[in-house]
């Protein structure tokens, strides 16, 4: 099948479809051990056209830098996880290249891998965070009631639309990279570092991203370096595209967490003390260790006001692939724990969680753990009452509680439960990419009143792209069809930073608005064509030092809640999700129908996490079986999902809300399940065997 000479000629927008004449395919030689030393790498005899690429062949540095952490391109000497890239095989047939890669002989000295992270050695600690507010020890000592639980979350596969990969080739005087990435400038800088050339000599052109769930933040840069190396050394276009199974086994997953919470309440049922001990597994290298830990620790006390708090968190490294972001950086894990604990507290006190949370939730003016005061209104009451109305929560909660308490066996009335949780999604701008943290969007208006927006951000969906166009069209007062977005290209588009944490809305969209407003202003003075730039500087990050945390982590946060109702099949104890209700305050919503759709889609994934998704507990070797077994919920397995957005004011800022379902649905689900089953759970998904045990006892011994 004939390819073309230039990728842009193929008119193909997906990396997987791009084929160039004379292209070589790159296969990865992977470490057979999780930890140890590589002594030698001996390829099989390779036919002409095929070559092996070893660490010593790298012209520049043998690493990329991700958030300040160095991650090797090709591990040399020691390896840190099973499957870590050691070398590459490049050649004209991808299947043959893969079989040669598998046939490479590797001599090694294996060491005992570090797989334990819930209890860990100090050598495994990559980051530590401690914050103390008030006097928690005293508060616990005088508290009359205290509850302690440990919640864990497992590792999750992104299952993004397209497996990871990159294509590299010489393009006149540039080195061109095509890659589906959330961060084109990071790809550029990484490739320049590895090839030992100037950043301006590398042009990165993002391909269609599809749904990424934050799985393509920094790892594509590593693969881009692999493709670039092959193209550079073979003097041919080179493409690496992981097989789905390979991607499943060896690319970053969501960091798993273990959070122990101890919470005390005063005689009025108000939170008086929270002690949180957090361990998060960031895998090998842990490039996102600092930020992940920071986000989890900040969200450890959730949405609650508490005068005495102690948070101690550790980001732990293990000999598994690097782990990190998934629909956010870590807040989801924290909310799972604190909201589940809050539900248990409320139940323990015999109170409807909706009411208990209302009494304890942060309000405008509440003091945060940073010592600052919350400037915004969380709108808890409005959100909670809308959810309660839509889902009929109060009646159902009371009814299911009654049934739960009186149940004698499984067939004694339906086994149903309903849960509610409330959380926030932080503005996502307190996360430093380890780069300049200055992001730019440019726009030009020509004489025919066509506006072109230039940004390196590759919108993850048509919806987001259209939102930018509509924002621009409103600001410049031209029809949306007259607005276009220039294909992102680091050579031509300014650096707009990593597209994560809803920055498509919070950063890029605002920049689009500002730059277009600037153009509109200029129009009154200057003739067309006009160009303008808008620059955004990330605010000061949250700082952790000496037992304090300072900053404004909740500035611009979006608040929201979820209700989840479940039913257990009395025969099989299969968990059936009956309904999910989401309500969020996203500030000014640019495109309500699309915002609702994106919340529904995120909620669908969140439900899937509750019912099915979990990678096997960290082990040295994840088998093909686990790849086959892993699956996301099918369209016919999802419950009805209802979304309501609060009406925002025109003057409000738009907020990112895409992560809210991940921050709210799991804990609401767990609470619902606990009520339905009459048992406490501490992780998701819940296995039927865990449900069956006590129920079986009840059924076996009963006399009806």
């Amino acid at each position, binding site marked *: 099948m004939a390819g073309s000479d230039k990728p842009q000629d193929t008119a193909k927008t997906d990396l997987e479809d791009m084929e160039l004449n004379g292209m070589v395919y790159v296969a990865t030689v992977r470490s057979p051990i999780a930890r140890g030393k590589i002594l030698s790498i001996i390829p099989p005899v390779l036919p002409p056209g095929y070559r092996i690429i070893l660490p010593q062949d790298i012209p520049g540095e043998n690493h990329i830098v991700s958030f300040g952490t160095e991650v090797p391109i090709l591990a040399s000497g020691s390896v840190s996880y099973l499957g870590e890239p050691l070398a590459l095989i490049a050649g004209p047939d991808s299947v043959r290249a893969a079989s040669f890669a598998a046939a490479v002989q590797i001599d090694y000295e294996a060491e005992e891998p570090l797989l334990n992270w819930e209890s860990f050695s100090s050598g495994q600690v990559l980051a530590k965070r401690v914050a103390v507010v008030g006097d928690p020890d005293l508060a616990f000592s005088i508290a009359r009631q205290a509850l302690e639980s440990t919640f864990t979350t497992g590792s999750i596969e992104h299952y993004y639309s397209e497996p990871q990969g990159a294509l590299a080739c010489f393009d006149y005087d540039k080195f061109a990279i095509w890659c589906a990435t959330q961060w084109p400038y990071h790809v550029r800088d990484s490739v320049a570092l590895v090839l030992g050339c100037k950043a301006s000599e590398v042009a990165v052109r993002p391909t269609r991203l599809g749904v990424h769930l934050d799985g393509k933040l920094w790892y594509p840069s590593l693969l881009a370096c692999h493709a670039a190396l092959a193209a550079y050394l073979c003097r041919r276009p080179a493409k690496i595209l992981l097989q789905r*199974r390979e991607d499943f086994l060896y690319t970053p997953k969501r960091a798993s967490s273990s959070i122990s919470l101890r919470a005390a309440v005063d005689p009025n049922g108000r939170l008086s003390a929270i002690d949180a001990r957090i361990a998060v597994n960031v895998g090998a290298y842990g490039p996102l260790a600092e930020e992940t830990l920071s986000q989890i620790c900040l969200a450890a006390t959730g949405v609650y006001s508490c005068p005495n708090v102690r948070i101690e968190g550790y980001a732990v490294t293990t000999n598994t692939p690097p782990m990190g972001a998934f629909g956010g950086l870590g807040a989801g894990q924290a909310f799972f724990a604190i909201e589940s604990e809050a539900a248990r507290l409320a139940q323990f006190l015999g109170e409807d969680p909706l009411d208990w949370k209302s009494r304890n939730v942060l309000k405008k003016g509440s003091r945060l753990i940073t010592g600052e005061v919350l400037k915004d209104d969380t709108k808890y009451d409005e959100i909670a009452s809308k959810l309660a109305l839509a889902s009929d929560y109060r009646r159902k909660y009371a009814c299911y509680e009654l049934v739960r308490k009186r149940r004698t066996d499984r067939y004694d009335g339906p086994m149903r439960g309903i849960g509610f949780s409330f959380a926030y999604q932080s503005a996502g701008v307190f996360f430093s990419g380890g780069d300049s943290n200055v992001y730019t969007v440019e726009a030009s208006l020509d004489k025919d009143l066509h506006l072109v927006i230039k940004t390196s951000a590759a919108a993850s969906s048509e919806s987001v792209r259209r939102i930018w166009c509509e924002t621009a069209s409103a600001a410049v007062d031209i029809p949306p069809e007259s607005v276009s977005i220039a294909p992102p290209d680091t050579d031509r588009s300014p650096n707009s930073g990593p597209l994560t944490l809803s920055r498509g809305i919070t950063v890029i969209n605002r920049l689009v608005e500002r730059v277009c407003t600037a153009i509109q202003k200029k129009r009154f003075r200057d003739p067309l064509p006009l160009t303008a730039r808008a620059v955004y500087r990330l605010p000061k990050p949250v700082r952790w030092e000496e037992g304090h945390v300072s900053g404004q982590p909740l500035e611009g946060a979006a608040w929201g809640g979820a209700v989840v109702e479940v039913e257990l099949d009395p*025969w*099989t*104890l299969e968990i059936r999700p009956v309904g999910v209700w989401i309500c969020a305050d996203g500030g000014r919503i640019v495109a309500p129908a699309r915002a609702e759709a994106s919340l529904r889609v995120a909620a669908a994934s969140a439900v899937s996490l509750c019912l*099915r998704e979990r990678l096997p507990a960290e082990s040295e070797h994840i088998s093909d079986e686990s*790849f086959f077994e892993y699956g996301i919920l099918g369209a016919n*397995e999802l419950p009805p999902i209802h979304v309501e957005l609060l009406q925002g004011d025109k003057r409000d800022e738009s907020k990112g809300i895409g992560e809210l379902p991940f921050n709210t649905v799991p804990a609401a689900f767990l609470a619902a399940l606990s009520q339905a089953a009459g048992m406490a759970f501490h992780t998701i998904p819940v296995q*039927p065997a865990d449900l069956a045990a006590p129920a079986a006892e009840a059924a*076996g011994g009963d006399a*009806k």
Partner: protein
Amino acid sequence: MLVSEIYTPKTVEEAITVLSRYPDALIFAGGTDYLRDQADVEISFPREVLSVAGIPELRQVNLTERFLEIGAAVTLSEILELKENAVPSLLSDALRGVASPAIRNLATIGGNLASGSRFMDSWAVLACLDTLVEARDELGARWINVNRLVSPEGKPAIPKASLLTRIRIPIDPWDISAFKKIGPKNYPCPESAAFAFAARADKGIVSDFRLAFAGERALRLREIESRLLGMRLPLSQKDRKQIQSQYRATEDPLSPGLRLQFNALIDGALDLLSR
């Protein structure tokens, strides 16, 4: 890639000839079971493959007053599309839960029954219904009760070097029946299993009772089933507890997790009979 010889016979006769010459040939219909454990882009086949999906004799469906006869290469989708009262609801419930419509368009009933490694969803139902399956080899054809396709250890035991050609399902109606699938729905694991039960009553007395459970191992306990015969419906507490404890007392190769679920399913069946 090992080069395999693919035989595509046009008749059952031809297929048997190939099979008798190559008894270890892989019988390939829809292939969804065989390919389930393969992850590479190139399929790994044994030296001989017998492709039977297109043999017209294996794709017939015959409905009589008492039986539904389905060719082994009829797909699960095709069975689900037969007219409603032709297929016992136990079977359609089971088949509806298999994978997705696209996979069901490929997967065949013969393949679902003949999986060598474990029992797939149809076995429990077909065993419960005392389905007969026709197996043909060079010595001729014989009908085997599906319940006998099980080794003494409870694992699948398909006759070697034979071609399953059709299944014959009795379609006399049942008064009470239920099918339940447990475990991960998207891929068969050790924790996946299917459960089917059916009961008939004549003037309030149990005249027939069947119960089958199968995952990696199959379980059908006829001695207990026969104890239910003659009991009055709705079951009394005493009768219910008696049967419950008999099932619980059996020694069988189920894992603890599956055992718990099996007990729960028995309870469910008995609960239905107690109402």
